[in-house]
C-alpha cells in the first residue's frame, strides 16, 4: 500500500463510487485502477516539475549560444542556429577585464577558506564531541546561537577593523576568519563525530595515544565523508559569495568571478543578454560539475544538519 497523500489530483468522482466493500476507504474493485491512475498522475507531476526546474538552465545555455540578432527574436528560439561559441570568449574578454585573474582569485580565496574552515572546525568539533569540560554544553549553545546573528551586525565593525589594520582590498578578511571555525561546520562535524563509536578512542587511549593523536589518526580518517561535505559546502559558499567580497575588495585586480558578473551589466549601455548568460554559465558550470561528482556528500551533509536540529 503506498502512502500517497490525498492530493487535489485525487478525483472526487472516485469517492462517490463508494460501494459497500471498502479497502482503506476505497471501493475494492477500483482500487487497483485508482492506484495505477495515482502513479500516473505522480509521474506526470514529477516530469512536469522536473522540466520546469530544469528550464531556466536550458534557457541560460540556449541564450548564451545565440547570435546577437536571435536574442531579440519573438517568439524566442530554444535551439539557436548556428551555435555561437564565440560568445563565451567575448563574454570574458569584451570588457577588457583580467578574467583569468578573477578565476585565480576566486580559487585562492575558496581553497584557503576551505582548508582553514575544515581544519579549525573539525578541531573544535572534536572538543565538543569527545572531551568533557565544564561549560561545554553552554558554549555549544553559544555556537548554535551565533548562527542566528545577522551578518549585518558584524559587517560594519569588521570593515572598520580591517581598514585600520590595512587588510582592506586584500584576501585576508575573506580567508582568515574562516580559520577560526564556522558554527555551521562545527555543528555538522560534531554531529558526525558523535556517530563514531567511542570504543575506538578508548582503545587508542589505553595504548597511550594523546587526544591530538586520536583526533588526527582516528577521528579525521573516519570522517572523510563529513570533511568532504564541509569542504564542498564551504567551496560553494565562497564561490557564490557576493556581499563580503563586494565590501572588502575594491581594485579590479583583486576581484572574484561573482563580482565580475555582478558588475557586468553596469558596463554595458544595452545589456547583451547572450554574453551575460555566457558569463553566468561560466560561473555556474564549475559548481554544477562539482555537484554531479559529489551529490551523495551534499545530500548527506544536509540530512546531517537538518534532521537533528
Amino acid at each position, binding site marked *: *500500500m*503506498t502512502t*500517497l*497523500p*490525498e492530493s487535489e489530483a485525487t478525483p472526487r468522482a472516485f469517492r462517490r463510487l463508494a460501494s459497500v466493500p471498502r479497502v482503506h*476507504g476505497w471501493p475494492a474493485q477500483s482500487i487497483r485502477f485508482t492506484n495505477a491512475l495515482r502513479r500516473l498522475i*505522480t509521474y506526470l507531476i514529477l516530469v512536469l*516539475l*522536473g522540466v520546469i*526546474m*530544469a*528550464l*531556466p*538552465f536550458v*534557457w541560460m545555455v540556449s*541564450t548564451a549560444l545565440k547570435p546577437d540578432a536571435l536574442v531579440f527574436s*519573438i517568439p*524566442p528560439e530554444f535551439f539557436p542556429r548556428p551555435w555561437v561559441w564565440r560568445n563565451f570568449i567575448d563574454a570574458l574578454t569584451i570588457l577588457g577585464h583580467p578574467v583569468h585573474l578573477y578565476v585565480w582569485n576566486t580559487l585562492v580565496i575558496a581553497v584557503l577558506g576551505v582548508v582553514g574552515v575544515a581544519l*579549525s572546525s573539525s578541531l*573544535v568539533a*572534536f*572538543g565538543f564531541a569527545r*572531551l568533557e*569540560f565544564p561549560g561545554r554544553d553552554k*558554549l555549544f549553545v553559544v555556537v548554535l546561537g551565533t548562527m*542566528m546573528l*545577522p551578518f*549585518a*551586525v558584524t559587517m*560594519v*565593525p*569588521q570593515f572598520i*577593523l580591517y581598514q585600520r589594520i590595512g587588510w582592506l582590498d586584500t584576501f585576508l578578511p575573506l580567508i582568515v*576568519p574562516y*580559520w*577560526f*571555525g564556522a558554527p555551521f561546520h*562545527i555543528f555538522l562535524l560534531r554531529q558526525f563525530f558523535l556517530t563514531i563509536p567511542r570504543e575506538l578512542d578508548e582503545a587508542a587511549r589505553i595504548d597511550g595515544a594523546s587526544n591530538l593523536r586520536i*583526533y588526527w589518526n582516528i577521528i579525521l580518517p573516519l570522517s572523510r565523508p563529513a570533511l568532504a561535505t564541509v569542504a564542498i559546502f564551504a567551496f*560553494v559558499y565562497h564561490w*557564490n*559569495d*557576493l556581499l563580503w567580497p563586494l*565590501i572588502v575588495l575594491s581594485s579590479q585586480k583583486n576581484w572574484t568571478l561573482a563580482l565580475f558578473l555582478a558588475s*557586468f551589466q553596469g558596463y554595458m549601455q544595452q545589456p547583451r*543578454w547572450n554574453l551575460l*548568460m555566457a558569463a*553566468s554559465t561560466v*560561473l*555556474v558550470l564549475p*559548481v554544477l560539475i562539482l*555537484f*554531479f561528482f559529489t*551529490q551523495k556528500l*551534499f*545530500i548527506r551533509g544536509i*540530512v546531517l544538519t*537538518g*534532521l537533528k*536540529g
Partner: protein
Amino acid sequence: MRQTIEGYLFISPWIIGFILFTFLPVAASFVMSFFNWRLIQAPVFVGVENYVNMFTADPLFGQSLQVTLIYVVVAVPLQLAFALFLAMLLNQRVRLLPFFRTVFYLPAVVSGVAVAVLWQWLYHPDLGLINEMLRWFGIKGPAWLVSPQWALPAIIFMSLWTVGGTMITFLAALQGIPQHLYEAAELDGAGERAKFWHITLPMLSPVIFFNLVLGIIVGFQTFTQAYIMTKGGPLNATMFYALYLYLNAFNFLKMGYASALAWVLFLIILVITIAQLKLSRRWVYYEFEEARA
C-alpha cells in the same frame, strides 16, 4: 583538570574567533549605533538619535522593513510548502528517484549572482521566457522586475526555485517515519488525509520547525537578488532591509546609522526566534526523537 585544559585548547580556535569576529564586532556595532559617524570625519555621540530617526525621519526604513516582512511572511511558508510537496512526490517509491532528486536540488547549489542574473533575463518583459510562456496561454505577462506591483512577487516566486536543500531534509525525514504507524492508522480506518494530518505532519514537525527558523533568519537577510536584479527599485518596491543597510554603510558611509539598523534587525530576528522556540512546544513533536536517542 587535564581534560578541562585540553577541552578548551581544542575549542580555542572557535573561542578566539568568536571574541574577535563576533563578540567584539557586535559590541562595537552597539556602541557605534549611538554615534554619527561618516567614516571620513570623527564620530560624534548622538545618543538614541539614530534609532529615533528611523521611526520619524526615514521613510525608507519603514519601507525596507515592510518589504522584508512581506517577503519573509509570504516566501518562507511557500518555500516550506513547496519543498514538502516535492519531497512527498519523491517519497512515492518512484523510479529514477536519484534523477528527479538531482533535478530538483540542482538550482539550490548554484544560488547567488548567476541565479539572480539568470532570473532577471527570465523576467525580461518582452524577451523573457516567463512572459513568452504566458503568451502561449494568451496571457499578457506583467513587466515583473520593472513593475512596482510585480517586482516583489517576482523575487518571492523565484525563491521557490532554490528550495532543494529544504526538500532533501524533508525527504530524509519522510523516509524515517516508521511504516507501522501508517499501517496501524489504516487498520483504524484512517484515510489519506487523516494520515497526512495525524502522522506525517507531526512526525515531520521537528524538521519543519528547523527549516522555519532557518528560513526566517535567511529571509531577513535577503540581499543578492535585490542588489543584482533591481537595486531596490522600482520605486523602492524591492528595497530589502539588508540592501538598505548596505547602502547606508557603504554608499552613504553612515556607519553609525547602519549599525543602528543592524541592531534593529538583530532584535527582530532574536524576538521572532525566541517566540518560535517558545511556541514550538505546542506543535513540535519530539517524543520520537527522544525515544530513539
